[in-house]
């Protein structure tokens, strides 16, 4: 499948190198800027960096559209169709996080250099995860992301809940990393390599039924499940979502999920595709549990962030439906699902941030009461987001669900599909409740909704994208399918 070229091929990693350099530049700029100029410079530089990064990827794939996979650093780093799309999605998502968070953080004196630095280092980690072709590179990327995220959750030093959330996140995250490493060491023992392509070769030809591989796989899947936040490894998700400052929740809930998808693809599909029968069963259990628990417990939540945390758990269950199919169609459905999911999450949290003001968090469900009377436009946007999350056509969320359900049904899991469908009816209830609050109830708070033009424009684009892409989902679906077909 791959030939490692004895060539460092630095140019292939130019976007990542650029990201690293710019992050360091931003660190210096932050140091030498006066207080009043700092905010503008940080914002400009970070967005500029991410946009250039995306442009570079776009230009690259425009000039070499049909390349299957290219390797750098002696085969430890790979750029293929999947990596390009996932990286672009990550960069755009992170840029959106920064724009959404700005006003919120400025009002709370938290829009500092540390925030930008941590978020950019985390981004770098994600890029490496997505492009890694070696277990060590994968792990490096993962830890860069994880360590930055722990610090981000704790960024609001004076908040007890934030510190508690950071602590939980760190301990459970470290445990997950440990499990993952342990599992990977088993795989190393069985196959004698840490290189994704070589492991794949060995497993394909001789070791698919090796108990050592299966044993290692259990730990690997457990570690991945921790990172993804699927049941029964989900305990950290609600607390971290709830406890972290909203922009950090938004960050954790969005771009890293894309990276986690790439990570899972590299480990399960790329390197252990030969042992699909082994991990498929595990994913079935994880998916079924996540769908049930995420949807049912979300009903009982009164805090919107906590509700979205459980909703994330159920969405990850859906994502697994696509991956566990173990086919290219299934993988590409998963990829489509994760991008859709991130787009929806960004819009939902953008909405929370819109309604928040200095000294006031709009993260309770009741804060959405009567939004239609305060502003029909924002209520409409939130309606799109909620129905999209519930999987009601014609919004994008429907197509994502359709794609993964098709993948799972094609793999023969009819009962699981029916189960997922029943669970998503339960899920629809709590999304509907928000629509109900917005449209059927009287507002309790009539303060005007103010936001910068950039924020409003982005939020509207974000939410309307769910409708427009829902009407024309073909492009994104085909892009995902092509990317996966060229990558595996």
């Amino acid at each position, binding site marked *: 499948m791959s030939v490692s070229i004895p060539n460092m091929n630095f140019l292939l990693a130019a976007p990542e190198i650029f990201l690293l350099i710019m992050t360091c530049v931003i660190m210096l700029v932050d140091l030498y800027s006066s207080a009043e100029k700092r905010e503008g410079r940080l914002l400009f530089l970070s967005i500029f960096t991410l946009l250039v990064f995306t442009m570079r990827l776009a230009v690259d794939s425009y000039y070499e559209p049909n390349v299957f996979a290219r390797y750098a650093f002696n085969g430890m780093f790979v750029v293929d169709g999947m990596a390009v799309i996932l990286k672009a999605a990550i960069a755009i998502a992170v840029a959106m996080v920064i724009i959404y968070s700005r006003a919120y953080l400025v009002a709370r004196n938290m829009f500092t250099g540390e925030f930008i630095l941590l978020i950019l280092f985390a981004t770098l980690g994600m890029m490496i995860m997505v492009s890694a072709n070696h277990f060590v590179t994968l792990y490096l990327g993962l830890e860069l992301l994880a360590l930055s995220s722990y610090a981000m959750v704790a960024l609001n030093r004076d908040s007890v809940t934030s510190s508690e959330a950071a602590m939980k996140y760190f301990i459970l995250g470290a445990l997950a990393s440990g499990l993952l490493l342990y599992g990977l060491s088993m795989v190393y023992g069985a196959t004698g390599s840490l290189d994704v392509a070589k492991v794949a070769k060995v497993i394909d030809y001789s070791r698919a039924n090796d108990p050592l591989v299966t044993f290692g796989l259990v730990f690997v899947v457990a570690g991945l499940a921790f990172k993804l936040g699927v049941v029964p490894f989900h305990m950290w998700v609600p607390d971290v979502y709830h406890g972290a400052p909203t922009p950090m929740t938004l960050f954790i809930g969005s771009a890293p999920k894309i990276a986690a998808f790439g990570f899972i693809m590299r480990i399960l599909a790329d390197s252990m595709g030969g042992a699909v029968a082994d991990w498929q069963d595990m994913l079935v259990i994880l998916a079924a549990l996540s769908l049930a628990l995420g949807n049912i417990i979300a009903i009982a939540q009164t805090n919107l962030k906590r509700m979205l945390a459980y909703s994330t758990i159920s969405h990850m269950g859906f994502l697994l439906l696509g991956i566990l199919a173990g086919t290219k169609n299934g993988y590409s459905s998963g990829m489509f699902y994760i991008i859709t999911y991130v787009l929806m999450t960004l819009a939902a949290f953008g909405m929370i941030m819109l309604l928040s003001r200095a000294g006031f968090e709009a993260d309770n469900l009741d804060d959405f009461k009567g939004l*239609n009377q305060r502003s*029909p436009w924002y209520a409409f946007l939130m*309606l799109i987001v909620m*129905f999209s999350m519930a999987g*009601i*056509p*014609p919004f994008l969320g*429907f*197509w994502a669900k*359709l*794609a993964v*359900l*098709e993948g799972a*049904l*094609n793999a023969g899991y*009819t009962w699981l*599909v*029916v189960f997922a*469908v*029943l669970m*998503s*009816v339960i899920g*629809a*209830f709590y999304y*509907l*409740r928000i*629509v*109900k609050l917005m*449209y*059927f109830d009287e507002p309790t708070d009539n303060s005007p909704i103010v936001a910068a033009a950039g924020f409003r424009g982005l939020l509207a684009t974000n939410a309307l994208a769910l409708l427009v892409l829902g009407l024309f*989902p*073909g492009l994104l*679906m*085909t892009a995902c*399918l092509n990317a996966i077909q060229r990558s595996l």
Partner: protein
Amino acid sequence: MQSSSITLSLTIWVPILAGVLTLFLNSERQKDSARWVALIGSILGLAVAIPLWTGFDNASSAMQFVERTSWVSRFNINYALGVDGISMLFVLLNSFTTILVVIAAWEVIQDKVSQYLAAFLIMSGLINGVFAATDAILFYLFFEAMLIPMFLIIGVWGGPRRVYAAVKFFLYTLLGSLLMLAALIYLYNVTNGSFDISDYHRVPLGMTAQTLLFFAFFASFSVKVPMWPVHTWLPDAHVEAPTGGSVILAAITLKIGAYGFLRFNLPIAPDASHALAGFMITLSLIAVVYIGFVALAQTDMKKLVAYSSISHMGFVTLGFFIFNAQGMEGGLVQMVSHGFISAAMFLCIGVLYDRVHSREISAYGGVVNTMPKFAFFAVLFGMANSGLPATSGFVGEFMVILGAMKVNFWFAFAAAITLILGAAYTLWMVKRVVFGDIANDDVRALKDLNGREMLFLSILAIAVLVMGIWPQPFTDVMHSSVDALLKHVATGKLN
């Protein structure tokens, strides 16, 4: 039939665009412009649908006014539209009813006018899409998207228990339709990647698969019809919905369920349909007879008409599952006729409700003394609802009973009971509300119909009478499609 017609697209998108336009006229002083835009939009919606009637080829059972464009190539989903004799009438009925709803809302709705009208216009377009789609996913998309405006209509402008009713309505229908989605994906795999409904009609299926598919579709459509025992959302939704919402629910969305049986259950699972016909007929007869008795016991006018709708829809499903042309055409005629009559009944109740703000039968009495014109219409539609000959209500019921008689005397007998029951509950209600002495001061203060109300009730009265006296054009349209469907169902798929 590969023509480049855009008639069907127009019937879908003209109302939706008009709705979006209305949505933007949302300030207090734009209320009137919102109303006019909505009215013009709905009239245009009907106007673009007229060619469906004039250009329709009665002799053909194939899809007509076909449109087909690739939409999502990844899943081979097409934007494919077409109507046959079964679906064409409902596109017209829906476009027609939308105008009535807009007129009926004119002065009555004062709160969030533009959103109210926009919701109805958008829904009208979506419903046309449901009837016109020949691609399963496109059908599903319209089918589900329709829930969103209806949910808002019930929840925002409805009565006191509107939230409960709206959520119940949404979740009931969603559960059914998601099971249908699973069935569609299954069929997609069986047909090697096609979402074309006509491919599903052709693909051979074993008995187990057919039975499972039948129940998946049944879950979706029986909730929509609604059939006993999954009918409980309907009285709640009807009672709490604003008048326009009740009209659209009764006149149109219930028909979607019955239409689904014809488009999916019967042709895709013909053998299972035969095997389960007894089951379906039993449920239908329970709806006809038992729900008829339930209607008799109601004290709330809207609830009474809601139960009467369930009972009448029982007739429709009965007609479908006795597998002969009379029954099936009778069912279809009954659907159209019920569309007119139930719309008229709900509009009549709306007229009273706007004046007195009560739906209780006991709050009225002797309305004829103060509202003679209204009394005329109430009695006329009451008669039509109980199936008096020369009204449209008679034609469908009579055909279904004739068809049932061919199959089994007792089916026909049980179905015929409803003629008595229907007369009993409808006329008894009319008697209590309209006739007698003036019951109270509210009734004494009633003003008779104004020009706007006269307008929409007269239009419906004409429709009811024309269809009752001369049903031939309606049955002519559906004849060849029904024959083709019955032939297909009789052939079966087992081999």
